């Protein structure tokens, strides 16, 4: 009788430990990974847009253009670009490199590939975290001797 009580208490403690692991470790990790992947998606979209814009410029042979610059708070002012053949592209860590269109497209493809790989990594990470959560939940279920769902 006493043994059973001790065992039950131990099991409760174990369940508690597992639940804590899921709640305090795995779930925050999962959220973090998803957020990281979202930023990567965002960057990927940005570069995809840039690639399409440059291709458009190339196709139309635009050498000068006008655009609206957002000064902040959705207040715009007209801006003129006299020469579009040279473009400064963000290469990361706050550095911008002056490219021609072809160079920019080349860089963008490299960058896109890298982003795609990173996104893949994060997707795998997310999947593994989800799997771990599932595993621990299964362990808890076994400890509580509940029937499998």
């Amino acid at each position, binding site marked *: 009788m006493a043994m059973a009580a001790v065992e039950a208490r131990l099991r409760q403690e174990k369940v508690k430990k597992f639940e804590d692991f899921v709640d305090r470790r795995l779930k925050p990790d999962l959220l973090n990974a998803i957020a990281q992947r979202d930023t990567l998606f965002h960057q990927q979209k940005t570069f995809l847009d840039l690639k399409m814009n440059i291709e458009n410029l190339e196709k139309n042979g635009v050498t000068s253009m006008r655009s609206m610059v957002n000064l902040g708070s959705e207040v*715009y002012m007209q*801006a003129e670009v006299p020469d579009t053949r040279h473009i400064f592209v963000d290469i990361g860590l706050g550095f911008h490199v002056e490219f021609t269109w072809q160079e920019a497209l080349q860089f963008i493809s490299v960058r896109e590939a890298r982003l795609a790989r990173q996104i893949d990594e994060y997707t795998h990470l997310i999947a593994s975290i989800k799997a771990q959560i599932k595993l621990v939940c299964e362990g808890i279920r076994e400890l509580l001797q509940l029937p499998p769902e």
Partner: protein
Amino acid sequence: MAKKGTATPLGAVFSQEETRRAVARVAQAVADRRAELGRVQGFFADNAALVSLVQRLPDELSHEIMVPFGGAAFFPGSLIHTNQLLVLLGDGYYADRSAKQTTEILHRRGMELEAQMEAIKATISDLEAEAKFFESTAAEASEGLVEIREEYDEDAEISSSKSDASSSYGGMSDKDMEHARNMARLAELEVEENESGNTSEEDGDDDDDDEGAGTSEDGEENGDTSGDGSEHDNVSFSASVSGSAGNNQSHGSTQLKSALKKLGGKDMLKGASLAPSASTSKINSEVQVPFRKAVSFKDDNRHVVSSLKSPSLPQDPNYPAVSQLTSDRAPSRDRNIISSRQKAFTGSIVEHDDSLSAIQPPRSNDSGKAVSDAPSRPVSRFKMQKGGR
């Protein structure tokens, strides 16, 4: 009579755990508001920066900038048409505005943001007060504070108070307390004003209680003498004057003297315009005691009763005199001052005293002397004056 209350330890009402949770919840709310406030403050700072930028941009025809091209690329270029801005009005509508107009729009936005910040700050202060209350409650509970509660039964309260009143001891103690308070106040006033005494309503009430007969008679008398009802207020007031005189003889006499002085001056002026007989008789009465009879005789068409009554109050002769004094002079402006503000009584009279004595020194002195020398005199004298008028 025995009432039962309950004494509940605060710790039993508010459990430690609950209080802690409440504090945590409020703290969380405060943190949320602070984050919101920080966000709005960021907007406000951005707005201010934009205002200064928009104001500066039209200073030059064009500005060399890097024109953003998508999120990750720039072209070297320049801003043109620097006095022409496209402002989002909301809901996808844009307006072409000049720099100045844009500045006005941004100012309005800034004011709106400021209002928001104020609202959030107010909310934060409210929440902080709430948190403080919770914390103090928790502290009190942990200190073992006890809440004592006693049910209020209106009927029981009334009956108990009635029984208190019915017992003579309670009534006496109340009266004594009031008396002591009055005396303390008098002493205080005495220190403040050496020359002129002061009065208070409590004095009058007190005297009413002590010398009920005199007061009631006085009231009747005034009912006879005074034409309009408003003078009854003055009656009670004058009673208070005399009361103070009774309590504090020296003060009362000086006060009365000054009052009478003023009255004398006033009446003298009045007497000149009115019947000469009245003025002369008045003079006589002031100077000489025996003339009192003549005065009362003259008055007897209206004031025989009062004049007859005056000897019946040897204890407090000033009493009816002063009441007459105030009630007599219905049209006078000074009276209004007296009746409206009792504290102003001595002050106004003293001032008048000076001015009057300057104008008619012998006259006012005479009247004052007459009163101080023969306190029983003024009763008849004032009645006479009233009759003359």
